[in-house]
C-alpha cells in the first residue's frame, strides 16, 4: 500500500491516491495531496474542500459532481455553483480531485 508523508507521519493512500482512513486527514495532508497535482490551495479551494467534508459528515458519501455543483450553488451562490468555476479550481474534476484533497473516498459513480 502506498503512503504519503505528513509532517513525518506516514498516512496510507489507495492506488488512486485517496486516503484509506478519513480520520487521518489534516489540512497538511490536503496540502501534500494537492502538491502531487501541482496545485496550490487558495481560499476558494478550501471553501469547496470544507464543504465536501461537511457533506460527508452529514450524508456519509462523497457526492457526484452534479450533486456537488448544485449543492455548492445553494450554499455559496450561483457564481460558484457551476462547472466552469469548479473545473477552474479543480482541473481534474471537481468531485474526483477535491474529494481526494478532502480525504474522502472517490465519489460513487465516478469512473
Amino acid at each position: 500500500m502506498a503512503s504519503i508523508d505528513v509532517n513525518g507521519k506516514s498516512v496510507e493512500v489507495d492506488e488512486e491516491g485517496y486516503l484509506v482512513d478519513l480520520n487521518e486527514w489534516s489540512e497538511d495532508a490536503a496540502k501534500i495531496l494537492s502538491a502531487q497535482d501541482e496545485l496550490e490551495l487558495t481560499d476558494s479551494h478550501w471553501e469547496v474542500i470544507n464543504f465536501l467534508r461537511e457533506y460527508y459528515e452529514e450524508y456519509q458519501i462523497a457526492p457526484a459532481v452534479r450533486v456537488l455543483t448544485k449543492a455548492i450553488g445553494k450554499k455559496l451562490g450561483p457564481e460558484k455553483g457551476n462547472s466552469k468555476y469548479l473545473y477552474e479550481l479543480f482541473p481534474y474534476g471537481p468531485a474526483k480531485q477535491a474529494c481526494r484533497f478532502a480525504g474522502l473516498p472517490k465519489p460513487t459513480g465516478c469512473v
Partner: protein
Amino acid sequence: MEEDGGVTKKFLYVNRRAPYGSIYALESLEVVLIGAAFEQDVSLAFIDDGVYQLKKSQSTDGIGMKNFSPTYNALGDYDINKIYVDKDSLEQRGLTLDDLMNLTWEDENDNYAEKPSISLVNSEELAVLMEQQDIILSF
C-alpha cells in the same frame, strides 16, 4: 461525464432485506446512486424487511457495521424522489410512516419547496409500478 446524452431508462430498485446482517441494502444504495449519477429515471421500492432500511434513528453501535442510513437523506440531492414503501409490510412490522426517516426533495419548479419523497403503496400499486419499468433490480 454524465452529460453525454445517452438513453434514459426507468430503473426500479426493489429492496426486501433488513439493512444490516447482509451487504444487500448497502450495495443497493450504491447502485442506486450510480444509476442516478448517470441521470437515469430511478425509483425505489421497500418491501418486507426492506422497510427497516428507512427506519429513523438507526444505531450500529455494537455490530461493527457502518450506519449508512444518513445517506438516504442525500437521495433528494440526486433527484431521487420516487420512493415507494409497501404499506402491508410496514403494518405487519408494527410501523407507520412516522417511524421512517423524513426523506424530502426540493422542487425546482415550485420555488424549491421541500416535498416528501416517500409514498405508501399497496400491492396492486406496486404491480402497476413494476409493469412500467424498463429494468428491475432486486436486492
